[in-house]
């Protein structure tokens, strides 16, 4: 499996009136060619900041204090503005959250879709418009030919998100970053957009980083999942591993707070408390104060990543060999039983990736 993007030890601080907010703390992950990686976490966990740093679109008060983002042998963080602009919208493009505000209200959509082609290619205007029309057709805008000169307000929310997607894929990017692309949409439209993205991924062979706070959306699209909390990745693995064999108590909490068909109690679980203030990040596991399974060590030291399988790692002291055996919540136990059954029946193929760099897997 070829890695197309590798983020190593990324640290990003934000200068604010109150001081320096450590928004991203030592984040490592990679993206394989052709896969969809979902980054999951609650708001403020740093998932949007992470992907914006890949695009070189960080706010003015953000500072990358360490790390590297390796894309095709080059470190994006070290590129000049000019060089990043050449990558943006060409090799890496992005779909934004809110389709109602992401399109220029005073420019016809055909022109907006053709814009990345004109910026990056030496294509004639006529050719670019023809290509824009094709791509609009591809993302499911019916009668695209006659709608090229229409303005954003003449389209519905779902259609506008299709147009935003068309803008993102018009240059056949190698990486497509989707920042909560379905959050602002109705549930029925959400499913359509997810299907569209899956279909497009096959057609244009792109790799996708999919950011969301909604685990339900993840199941439908992701190959691998990384869970972020308080500026760190705390668990990652294949989508089946995260859904059926989660190890970090925060992932448990997330899964438990998602309604399922067999949720038996009449109340939905909510993780108590609030995320820590990243002005002064805690010394140990940032989740400890909200964690019913917290141990003394959680307040003392950050847990390293423990290996569960070749593809599955989690940063929690519970996985330390000396840690007492803990009983996960009932619902999680059910999931894990299901996982064992599926593995036994051979319904889940444990993907065997070669994991080397970028994974810290031992404590001692």
């Amino acid at each position: 499996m070829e890695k197309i993007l590798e983020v190593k030890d990324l640290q990003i601080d934000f200068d604010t009136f109150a001081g320096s907010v450590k928004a991203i703390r030592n984040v490592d992950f990679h993206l394989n060619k052709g896969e969809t990686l979902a980054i999951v976490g609650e708001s403020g966990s740093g998932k949007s900041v992470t992907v914006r740093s890949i695009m070189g679109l960080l706010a003015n008060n953000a500072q990358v204090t360490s790390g590297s983002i390796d894309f095709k042998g080059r470190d994006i963080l070290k590129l000049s503005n000019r060089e990043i602009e050449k990558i943006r919208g060409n090799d890496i493009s992005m779909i934004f959250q809110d389709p109602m505000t992401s399109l220029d209200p005073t420019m016809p959509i055909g022109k907006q879709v053709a814009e990345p082609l004109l910026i990056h290619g030496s294509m004639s205007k006529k050719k670019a418009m023809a290509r824009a029309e094709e791509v609009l057709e591809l993302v499911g805008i019916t009668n695209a030919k006659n709608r090229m000169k229409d303005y954003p307000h003449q389209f519905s929310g779902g259609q506008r998100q299709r147009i935003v997607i068309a803008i993102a894929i018009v240059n056949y990017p190698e990486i497509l970053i989707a920042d909560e692309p379905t959050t602002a949409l109705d549930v029925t439209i959400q499913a359509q957009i997810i299907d569209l993205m899956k279909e497009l991924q096959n057609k244009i062979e792109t790799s996708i980083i999919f950011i969301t706070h909604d685990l339900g959306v993840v199941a439908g699209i992701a190959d691998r999942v990384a869970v972020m909390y308080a500026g760190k990745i705390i668990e990652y693995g294949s989508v089946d591993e995260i859904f059926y064999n989660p190890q970090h108590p925060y992932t448990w909490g997330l899964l438990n707070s998602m309604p399922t068909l067999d949720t038996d109690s009449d109340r939905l679980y909510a993780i108590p408390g609030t995320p820590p203030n990243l002005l002064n990040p805690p010394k140990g596991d940032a989740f400890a104060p909200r964690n019913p399974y917290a141990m003394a060590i959680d307040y003392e030291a950050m847990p390293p990543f423990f290996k569960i399988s070749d593809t599955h790692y989690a940063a929690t002291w519970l996985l330390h060999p000396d840690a007492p055996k803990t009983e996960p919540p009932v619902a999680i136990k059910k999931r894990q039983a299901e996982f064992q059954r599926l593995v036994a029946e051979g319904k889940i193929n444990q993907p065997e990736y070669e994991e080397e760099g970028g994974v810290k897997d031992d404590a001692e």
Partner: protein
Amino acid sequence: MRKYIFKRIMYMILTLFIIATATFFLMKLMPGSPYANQAKMTADQRAIMDAQYGLNKPVYQQYFIYLIGILHGDFGTSFQFNNQPVSFLISSRIGPSMQIGAQAIILGTVLGILLGAIAAIRKNTWVDTLATFFAILGRSIPNFVFAVLLQFYLAFKLKIFPIALWDEGFRSSILPTIALSMAPLATTARFMRTEMVDVLNSDYIELARAKGNTPWQTVAKHALRNSLIPVITIIGPMAVDLMVGSMVVENIFSIPGIGDQFVKSITTNDYPTIMGLTLLYSFMLVVVILIVDILYGFIDPRIRLSGNEGSN
């Protein structure tokens, strides 16, 4: 759209009618006689004059005569300025006012847009502070103070420009234009900055950056047009500023325009001219507001295309 414009024009006519009526009766309430040399007049002479100008008729008849006159472009006779018809007085003086007004609004808005845009792009830097400071100065220093200062230093002391009068063509219009342009400049700069800061924070600007546009391309292709559209709406209030400003500026620079005429008519109780000019000012203002509304509808696709005519 056509229906809307028609409706607006009807409202406009109604407004002007109300204004004409109100001014007419207000003038009838004014103290003093309309004639310039009334002290020397005998009762007989006065009666002859009254008959000549129809002032002996009942007020309601005078009112209808006045209204019908307006429709024919007749605003009565000015008794103070050589008994000239008001319409002639106005038409002979409107040229310089229009020229200075147009020059000032062009100079002011162009500079204001530049200043506001630069301030927004370089927000929270010294450039922004400087631009904002200039805008505050332009808004705070009364234009007649500014006009006198310009006249004193650039014309009287340095002798770069003519001190006053309207006999050197364009050169005569430079200082009044600068003095008049301060208010539109300050207003535009301030408004433009607010709009542009808003636009630059919007999602579609981030998307434009994500497409690979350079910062300047983003401003040129997306930010500028989107922040310019609302600027059209302040043209109305700016026109008012110009009318007010022209009165003193023309007075200071002794320019034979309608603003100067208005001030002179006020100081000499020249009611027919005051009425005529009031109507003219109101007419210009209503027309400007109407044009701005229509223009806005044409330029902003969100309004243009939501009308009855559907898309394109």
